[in-house]
C-alpha cells in the first residue's frame, strides 16, 4: 500500500494493509526535513493530488502490483527494460519506470516555464559571448579561470557562427524543490540533455496504463513539443519538408541510453547513424549509403561535443566525425546543440548567473539557483574552508602531483582559491513511489527540457522525474541507480487530445529512397554469411558425431572414409597420407572434433563463427525485433555453456540459429536490409555446396552406396531425395538434386536464382539492366547451372579431376568469389565503412 511521504525508516507490512482498503492512504507521516510532493500533512493530500489519490484509493495493493507488472511489460516490449544483450555487455537497465506520476499545478508550471525560458536565453547569450567577443571575460563578469582554464570551452569552436543562428537549441535542466517548496535549479544541460526519450516512453506507457483516467483530466500533452522541435529546426534551416536530411548521431549500441536514441530516431524520423556512417567531403557532411553519399544538413547529436571531432579536438574519440568542426565553421551543417555548447553547463558557473543575467538580459534571474560560491570571493573561501566536503574544481585537471590529478585539499584551496567553488548538499523533496509490491517515499529531482523556436524557447510541459533512495544516487550520473517518473502538468484550459503515437515514424532508413547505410548493409550481409557458415559446419559435424558416437568400431562404419574426405576439405582433420588416417582416427578424432566446435584458435570453429554472428547482430541490433534478439541472447548463453554431450550442444545451437534467422527474416520488411542478409546467406551456401561437391567428386564413387546418402545428409537434402526418387542412390539424380534442381532450397541452382533476383533490386545509377558486373555474373552463373547436363553422370563412367563437371565447378567457385568481391566493392567498401583512421602527428620541434 502506498505510504506517501512517510519518514524514511518506517514501512507498513503488506499483510496488515491488504484488508484495509479505505485506509490505504491514511497512515503515513510527513517528514519535516523535506517538502512532500503529495501531502501537506499525514492526513491531508495536496489539492492537485486528490484526483489521482482518489482514483488509486479504489484499488487495492494487488491491483497496483498488476499495474506495475503491466508497466514493466509494456516498457519491455518497447525494448527499454530488458537489454537483450545484457549478458554480452552486462549493462544494467536505465531509469526504470515508477507507475506513480508526479503532479504539478498549472500555477506551479507557469513559473517554472517562464524561468526555464529565461535561463535558456541567458545561457544562449552567454555561449554567443564566450564563442564571440568574450565581453563577459574581459569585464571580469566571469573569472578568467571559468573560461580559459575550462575544458568545456573548445578553442577550435571560437568564432563559429551556427548555421541556424542559434547557440543553444536543446536545453535540459535538473530542478529540485527545497524544504519550503521553492523550485531551485540544481544543474543545467547544454551539451546533450539526456532522458527526453525516456520521458516520451514513460508517457506512452502511463497513458495506456491509466487509460480510464488520463484522457479525462486536463493533463498537458507531450506530442506538440516534438512537433515544435522538428518544425523549428526545419524553418531555421529552410530545409525541405519531405526530405530534410537530418540524422541522429549515436555512439552505438554500447551506449547505456541507446534505447532512448533509437526511440527518438523513430519518433522524430531522423535516421540513427554512427560516426562511421558519416564522412566529410569539401567541408560538407555526408551519410554513406548504398546508393552513394547523401548530404546531411542537420545533426541531432547524442555524443558529447568534446568527442565529436577527433581531428580538430586532438583526441582519440572514435565516436564522432573527423572534420565535423570544419563543416560547422563553413556553416554547412546545423548541429543540435552547436559544438562547444557544453561550456554553459560547466560546474560552478551557476554562482555567476545572477550577475550575468543582469548584464546580458537586463533582468533579474527568475529561477533560484542551488547555492554555489566561488572561492575567489572572500565569503566563498570562508565557506569552503569551513565546509571542505562541499568543494569542487571549477576546471578539473589543473593541478597535478606525481602525474595524478590532485583532489581538493585545504592547501590547494588556500593556494589557488580561484580554481574552486563550494556548494552545499541539496535537500530535495520526496514523493511516493510504488516499488512493485509496496510503496515507499523517495527523493525526487525534476528534469525539464526546452527547444529553440523562432521567437525563443518552448518548454516540454512534463519531463523526466528522477527518484532515488539516497541523495548520492539521486545526484549521481548513473541511470541504473535511479528510477524515473512521468511528470503530469495540469492545465486550466481544456487540453486538445493529441495522440502521441501519431508522431511515430516508420523506420527512418526505409523512408528515404529505401536506402540504408553501407555499414548496416555490410553487417547484415556478413550476418547472413556467418549464420549459414555456422549451420553448414554444424550439419557436417552432427553427421560425423552421429556415426562415431555409437558403439561401432571405426573400421565398421562404412561412411567414415567419405566423411574423412569432407572433414579434411573443411580443414577439421589435417591433410595426411591415407595410411596415417587410420591411426589418426583411432587416437585423435574426438580431439579434432572437439577443436572444431570449441577451439578458440581456428577461424572457422563453431564457437568463433558464432562469436562473429553475435558481433554482427550486435552492430545492427536496432534492426531486429525483440523476439529475435532474445534468440541472440540465448545463443550467447549456448556459446558459453558446455555440456558433456557435444551432439546435444550442436542440436541446441542449430535450433536457436534457425529460430533467430526465422524470426529475423520474418520481422524485417522486405527492404534492402533483408535483401543483404539473404544475399549473404545465399552466397555462403552456394560457395559451401559447390566446394563440397567439387572436392568430393573423386571420392564419391569409391563406395557410392554409402557416400551418396552421406553427401545428401550433409547437404540437408536426404529426405527430399527419398521423397522424390524412391530409388537407390545414383550419382546422376543426386547431383541434379544438389546442383541444378531449383525447387530444392538447398541446391546451388536455387541459391543462384535467389542471388540473381536480389541483385536486380540493389540501388544503381544506371537504368540499363545487366549494367553492373555483379548483375552480369549472377546471370552467367545461373545460366551456366541451367545449361548443365547431368543426365550422363554416373559412377560407372570415368570420373576424374579433369572432368567437364569438375572444370565447371572450379569456374563456378571462382565466379562466386568474384561476385562477392564486386558486391563488396560496389556497395560496401567503395566508401570505406570502417574508418582506419590514423592520426598524423606533426614533426617534433627541435
Amino acid at each position, binding site marked *: 500500500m502506498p505510504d506517501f511521504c512517510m519518514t524514511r525508516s518506517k514501512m507498513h507490512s503488506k499483510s496488515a494493509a491488504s484488508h484495509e482498503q479505505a485506509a490505504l492512504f491514511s497512515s503515513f507521516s510527513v517528514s519535516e526535513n523535506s517538502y512532500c510532493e503529495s501531502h501537506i500533512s499525514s492526513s491531508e493530500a495536496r489539492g492537485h493530488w486528490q484526483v489521482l489519490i482518489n482514483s488509486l484509493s479504489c484499488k487495492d495493493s494487488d491491483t497496483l502490483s498488476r499495474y506495475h507488472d503491466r508497466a514493466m511489460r509494456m516498457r519491455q516490449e518497447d525494448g527499454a527494460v530488458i537489454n537483450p544483450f545484457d549478458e554480452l555487455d552486462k549493462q544494467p537497465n536505465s531509469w526504470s519506470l515508477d507507475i506513480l506520476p508526479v503532479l504539478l499545478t498549472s500555477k506551479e508550471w507557469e513559473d517554472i516555464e517562464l524561468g526555464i525560458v529565461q535561463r535558456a536565453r541567458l545561457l544562449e547569450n552567454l555561449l554567443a559571448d564566450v564563442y564571440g567577443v568574450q565581453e563577459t571575460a*574581459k569585464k571580469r563578469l566571469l573569472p*578568467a579561470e571559468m573560461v*580559459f582554464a575550462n575544458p568545456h570551452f573548445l578553442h577550435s569552436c571560437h568564432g563559429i557562427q551556427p548555421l541556424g543562428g542559434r547557440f543553444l537549441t536543446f536545453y535540459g535542466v535538473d530542478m529540485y524543490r527545497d524544504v519550503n517548496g521553492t523550485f531551485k535549479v540544481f544543474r543545467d544541460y547544454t551539451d546533450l540533455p539526456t532522458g527526453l526519450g525516456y520521458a516520451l516512453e514513460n508517457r506512452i506507457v502511463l497513458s495506456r496504463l491509466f487509460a480510464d483516467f488520463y484522457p479525462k483530466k486536463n493533463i498537458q500533452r507531450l506530442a506538440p513539443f516534438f512537433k515544435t522541435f522538428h518544425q523549428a529546426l526545419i524553418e531555421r534551416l529552410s530545409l525541405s519538408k519531405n526530405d530534410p536530411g537530418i540524422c541522429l548521431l549515436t555512439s552505438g549500441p554500447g551506449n547505456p541510453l541507446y534505447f532512448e536514441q533509437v526511440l527518438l530516431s523513430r519518433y522524430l524520423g531522423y535516421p540513427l547513424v554512427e560516426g562511421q556512417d558519416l564522412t566529410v*567531403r569539401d567541408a560538407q557532411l555526408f551519410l554513406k549509403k548504398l546508393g552513394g553519399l547523401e548530404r546531411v544538413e542537420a545533426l541531432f547529436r547524442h555524443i558529447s561535443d568534446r568527442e565529436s571531432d577527433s581531428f580538430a579536438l586532438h583526441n582519440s574519440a572514435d565516436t564522432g566525425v*573527423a572534420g565535423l568542426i570544419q563543416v560547422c565553421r563553413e556553416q554547412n551543417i546545423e548541429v543540435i546543440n552547436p559544438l562547444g555548447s557544453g561550456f554553459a553547463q560547466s560546474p560552478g558557473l551557476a554562482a555567476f548567473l545572477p550577475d550575468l543575467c543582469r548584464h546580458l538580459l537586463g533582468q533579474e534571474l527568475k529561477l533560484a539557483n542551488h547555492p554555489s560560491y566561488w572561492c575567489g570571493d572572500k565569503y566563498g573561501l570562508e565557506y569552503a574552508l569551513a565546509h571542505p566536503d562541499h568543494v569542487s574544481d571549477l576546471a578539473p585537471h589543473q593541478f597535478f602531483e606525481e602525474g595524478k590529478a590532485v583532489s581538493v585539499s585545504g592547501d590547494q584551496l588556500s593556494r589557488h582559491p580561484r580554481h574552486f567553488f563550494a556548494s552545499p548538499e541539496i535537500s530535495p523533496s520526496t514523493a511516493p513511489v510504488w516499488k512493485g509490491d509496496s510503496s515507499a517515499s523517495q527523493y525526487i529531482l525534476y528534469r525539464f527540457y526546452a527547444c529553440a523556436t523562432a521567437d525563443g524557447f518552448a518548454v516540454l510541459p512534463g519531463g523526466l522525474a528522477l527518484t532515488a533512495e539516497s541523495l548520492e544516487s539521486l545526484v549521481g550520473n548513473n541511470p541504473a541507480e535511479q528510477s524515473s517518473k512521468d511528470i503530469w502538468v495540469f492545465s486550466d484550459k481544456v487540453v486538445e487530445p493529441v495522440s502521441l503515437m501519431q508522431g511515430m515514424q516508420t523506420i527512418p532508413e526505409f523512408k528515404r529512397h529505401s536506402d540504408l547505410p553501407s555499414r548496416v548493409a555490410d553487417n547484415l550481409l556478413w550476418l547472413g554469411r556467418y549464420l549459414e557458415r555456422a549451420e553448414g559446419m554444424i550439419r557436417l559435424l552432427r553427421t560425423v558425431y552421429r556415426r562415431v558416437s555409437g558403439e561401432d568400431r571405426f573400421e565398421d562404419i562404412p561412411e567414415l572414409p567419405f566423411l574423412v574426405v569432407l572433414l579434411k576439405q573443411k580443414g577439421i582433420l589435417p591433410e595426411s597420407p591415407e595410411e596415417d588416417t587410420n591411426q589418426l582416427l583411432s587416437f585423435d578424432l574426438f580431439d579434432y572434433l572437439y577443436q572444431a566446435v570449441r577451439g578458440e584458435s581456428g577461424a572457422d570453429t563453431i564457437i568463433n563463427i558464432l562469436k562473429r554472428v553475435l558481433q554482427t547482430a550486435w552492430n545492427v541490433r536496432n534492426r531486429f525485433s525483440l523476439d529475435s534478439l532474445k534468440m541472440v541472447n540465448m545463443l550467447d548463453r549456448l556459446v558459453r555453456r558446455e555440456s558433456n554431450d557435444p551432439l546435444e550442444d550442436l542440436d541446441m545451437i542449430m535450433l536457436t540459429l534457425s529460430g533467430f534467422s526465422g524470426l529475423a527474416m520474418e520481422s524485417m520488411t522486405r527492404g534492402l536490409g533483408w535483401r543483404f542478409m539473404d544475399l549473404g546467406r545465399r552466397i555462403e551456401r552456394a560457395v559451401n555446396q559447390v566446394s563440397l561437391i567439387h572436392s568430393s567428386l573423386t571420392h564419391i564413387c569409391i563406395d557410392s552406396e554409402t557416400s551418396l546418402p552421406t553427401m545428401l545428409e550433409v547437404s540437408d537434402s536426404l529426405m527430399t531425395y527419398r521423397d522424390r526418387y524412391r530409388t537407390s542412390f545414383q550419382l546422376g539424380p543426386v547431383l541434379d538434386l544438389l546442383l541444378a534442381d531449383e525447387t530444392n532450397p538447398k541446391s546451388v541452382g536455387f541459391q543462384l536464382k535467389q542471388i540473381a533476383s536480389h541483385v536486380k533490386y540493389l540501388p544503381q545509377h544506371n537504368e540499363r539492366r545487366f549494367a553492373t558486373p555483379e548483375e552480369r555474373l549472377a546471370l552467367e552463373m545461373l545460366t551456366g547451372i541451367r545449361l548443365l547436363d547431368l543426365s550422363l553422370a554416373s559412377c560407372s563412367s570415368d570420373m576424374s579431376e579433369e572432368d567437364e563437371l569438375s572444370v565447371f565447378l572450379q569456374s563456378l567457385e571462382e565466379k562466386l568469389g568474384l561476385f562477392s568481391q564486386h558486391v563488396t566493392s560496389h556497395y560496401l567498401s567503395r566508401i570505406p565503412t570502417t574508418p582506419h*583512421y*590514423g592520426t*598524423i602527428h606533426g614533426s*617534433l620541434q*627541435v
Partner: protein
Amino acid sequence: MKYRVTHTTAYAYSIPASLSQNEVFLTPRNTPNQNVLSSELRIVPTPQYMHRRVDYFGNTGHLFMVQHPHENLRITAISQVDTSPLPLPEKQKTLPWEQVVERLHTSALEQDVMACQYCFASPMIQLQDDVFQYAARSFVPGVPILEAALDIMQRIYADFEYDKDASTVDTSVSEVLGHRKGVCQDFAHLGISCLRSHGLAARYVSGYLETIPPQGQPKLVGADASHAWFAVYIPDHGWVDCDPTNNMVPNDTYVTVAWGRDYSDVAPAKGVVTGGGVHDLTVQVDVARLL
C-alpha cells in the same frame, strides 16, 4: 634582416590513403619586430578542399583535404620575412612577479585579462607540483618578473641535456623533468609550466632560426628544423621571448610563425588519414638570409 624560409613536410603512406585532412600552421605572423613580405603554400597532390583562417590565437592556419587515393603528401611553405631587433625592458625595472600575478587576476585592462589565456593548464601543460618545486628557486619574493623568467631560461639550459632521441611529440613535462633531457619543444613546455605554476602567463612560440649563422658565430641548435621557445607576459610591456634551448633571448635571427598555449595549438602540420597504413615523415627546413 631578410630571410627566405622553406619548410617541407612529406608523408609517405604504406597503402594509399583514401582521404586525408590536414591542418598546418606554416604562415609566419606579423609581429612588432617581424614583417611578412610573402608566404605561399604548395601542396602535392593538389587538395580538393582548402580553407585559410585566422585562429583563436591570431595565427594563420590552413585546413585542407585530399579526397582521392594518394600515397604521398608533400607540403611546402615558402615565406619571406623582414625581422628587426626588439629592445628588451630593463629587467630590474619590471614588476615583481607577485604583483604580476595580482595584475593578471584583478586588472581591468583588456590586455591583462586576455593574457590569462596563457595562465592555466592546457592540453600538454599540467600544473604539477614537481615543476612548481623546481621553479621555486627562481621565484624568491620580490624578484622582477623578467629576471625570474630569464633565470628559468638559463637554468633549463644548464640543467638539461639536449637529446634528439629522448623525445616524441607527446613527451610530457613530467618525463622531461624526470629524465633531465629533451628537445626545444620540451624545454619550451617546461619553461611555460614553471611560469604558469606560479600564476604567470607564458605561451609557446613556434618558428625558425637562421640556418647558417654569421661568420664567426656557432650554428645554433634547432637550425635545420622548426624551432620553438616560450614567451612571458610582462604587464605594461608585452611579451618577451626566451629560448631555453640556446639560453638566449631571440633576436632578429629568429622567425616567428605562430603561438598558442602549447605545441598542440600550433603544430606545424597535423592531420588524420583514412586508410594509409603506417606513414613515414620527413621534414626539411631552410632559413636563408637574403642580401
